[in-house]
């Protein structure tokens, strides 16, 4: 059994987790004055030295985080007013914004990428715009979006849209442009119409590359939604973190960080699963 790689990796992962939690627990234990937490004294300075010193650093111990997490997760969907919603509701808002922005981006990026990939002319014509728009931080669009859209929720969705569109557009165009000539010749010698060629040859041939673009996009979208929600406020996991930071509830902050990681992992894994359906061995 020890020769099984997966088993050994699992054991090692668990050992690392236990060691990490142990160090964390010891470092945050009240009687130990942790010398390695220089950055925290800076934090304390920022707080004017007014942080609660009952625990040595103000950082909650893992046990506190877990008991807090248990409390939150046992009732994730409660709604007690604008500043007190369950973690499930906050995550649901964020996921809703990400999925909506992502879907709108896919709706535009995939057909447009298809056309750009099939036409060398359009490819060259669009290229300078894509190259300049792609590296813009999506949050830089926020003020413009807020001004034009005049709705903070829609602005957050727009920011997700604008950051999701580029990886999908570029990957779709690349995937379509690099479909093997042999396969296109097969379509030609079988007298397929352009539309049939697009759907029965180019789309399946480019699908793995398109899915890779979608996977990159959803990853970026999930990174960006936290920052966007911190800016626009109201609801969502980004707002939740910022709110708990203002409450100095670090256990909630740490809990939220872990939840962001888990949801991001699930989003990525679901697209990885989708990629499996379209992948082909050549």
């Amino acid at each position, binding site marked *: 059994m020890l020769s099984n790689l997966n088993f050994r990796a699992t054991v090692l992962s668990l050992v690392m987790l236990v060691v990490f939690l142990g160090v964390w627990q010891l470092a945050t234990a009240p009687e130990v004055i942790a010398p390695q937490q220089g950055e925290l004294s800076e934090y304390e300075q920022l707080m004017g030295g007014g942080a609660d010193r009952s625990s040595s650093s103000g950082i909650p111990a893992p046990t506190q985080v877990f008991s807090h997490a248990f409390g939150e997760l046992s009732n994730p969907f409660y709604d007690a007013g604008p500043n007190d919603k369950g973690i499930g509701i906050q995550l649901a808002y964020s996921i809703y914004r990400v999925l909506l922005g992502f879907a709108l981006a896919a709706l535009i990026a995939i057909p447009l990428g298809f056309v750009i990939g099939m036409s060398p002319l359009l490819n060259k014509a669009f290229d300078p715009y894509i190259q300049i728009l792609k590296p813009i931080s999506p949050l830089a669009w926020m003020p413009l979006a807020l001004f034009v859209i005049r709705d903070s929720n829609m602005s957050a969705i727009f920011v997700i849209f604008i950051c999701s569109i580029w990886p999908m557009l570029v990957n779709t165009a690349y995937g379509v442009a690099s479909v*093997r000539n*042999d*396969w296109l*010749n*097969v379509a*030609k*010698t*079988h*007298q*397929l119409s352009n539309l049939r060629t697009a759907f*029965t*040859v180019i789309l*399946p*041939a480019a*699908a793995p590359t398109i899915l890779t673009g979608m996977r990159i996009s959803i990853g970026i979208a999930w990174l960006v939604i936290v920052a966007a929600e911190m800016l626009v406020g109201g609801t969502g996991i980004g707002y939740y973190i910022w709110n708990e930071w203002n409450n100095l509830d670090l256990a909630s902050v740490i809990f939220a960080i872990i939840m962001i990681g888990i949801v991001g992992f699930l989003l990525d894994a679901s697209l990885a699963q989708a990629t499996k359906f*379209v992948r*082909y*061995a*050549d």
Partner: protein
Amino acid sequence: MSKGFLEIENLSQRFPQPDSSDLMTVFEGVDVTINKGEFVCLIGHSGCGKSTILNVLAGLATPTDGNVIMDNKEITGPSLDQGVIFQNHSLLPWLSARDNVMFAVRARWPNWSKAKRLEHAERYLHMVGLDHAMDRKPAQLSGGMRQRVGIARAFAIEPKLLLMDEPFGALDALTRGVIQEELLKIWSETHQTVFMITHDVDEAILLADRVLLMTNGPHAQVAESVKIDIPRPRERATLHQNDAYYPIRNHLVDFLVNGAKEMSAKAQAAAARGDNPRHSPRIVNPAKPEASPEPGPRMVRAV
């Protein structure tokens, strides 16, 4: 001269060169006639433009000059009348063997019911001995099996003209032998008109009614049309026992080793003089040497 099923008329191909304003003439003035049901192989050295001729016949390339008439219609683009088998199989890797053939059958007969298409596709896969592997994707098939799927796909659409560009070039000798015999079997059942490019003299003798020999490029010409006067059915195992086998083989090999170069030099000299390059291949039957060479113009065809 009666019109054949496939008429290649005065076909020439010239390409622009990167470092010169002159065009590079790959081949020129090619006149070839192929009859219905004939199996014709084209042999020549690399770079003489064999594949370009095949691509013109497939409608995938446009010649600089000349035209190709098939069944009284000019070939202007790819169509289902010309089936093509490429060297690198070009199967769609996301489809199973069956679906690859179904893909072609559906393109050919869009109005057929699914059951009829399936029955048709499976019949051709059965002909190439792939009953057990129909559900496999190309990546799960050996090189020989992939090429068989390609053959099944091309035959299944029952094209007027079947074009093969070194279909067995990437296969090992044993597999190649087996598939050649399968190809012969299918061909004897369907009697397609076949135009095939090969490098393999023995393959050409086994399969073809006629072998066209091309001189080296530039200014390549289809110099000879060698009749393979060996009765069918032919078998690889006994082919060499036929009296005609060695004369034919020697003739072909001699052409490739010596003749292709010499004639190429003559053709280039003629091109430099500005002679009309239009030519019909000289008809040769090495099995009956007294019958050849046939008298007649070599460089300019009498119309």
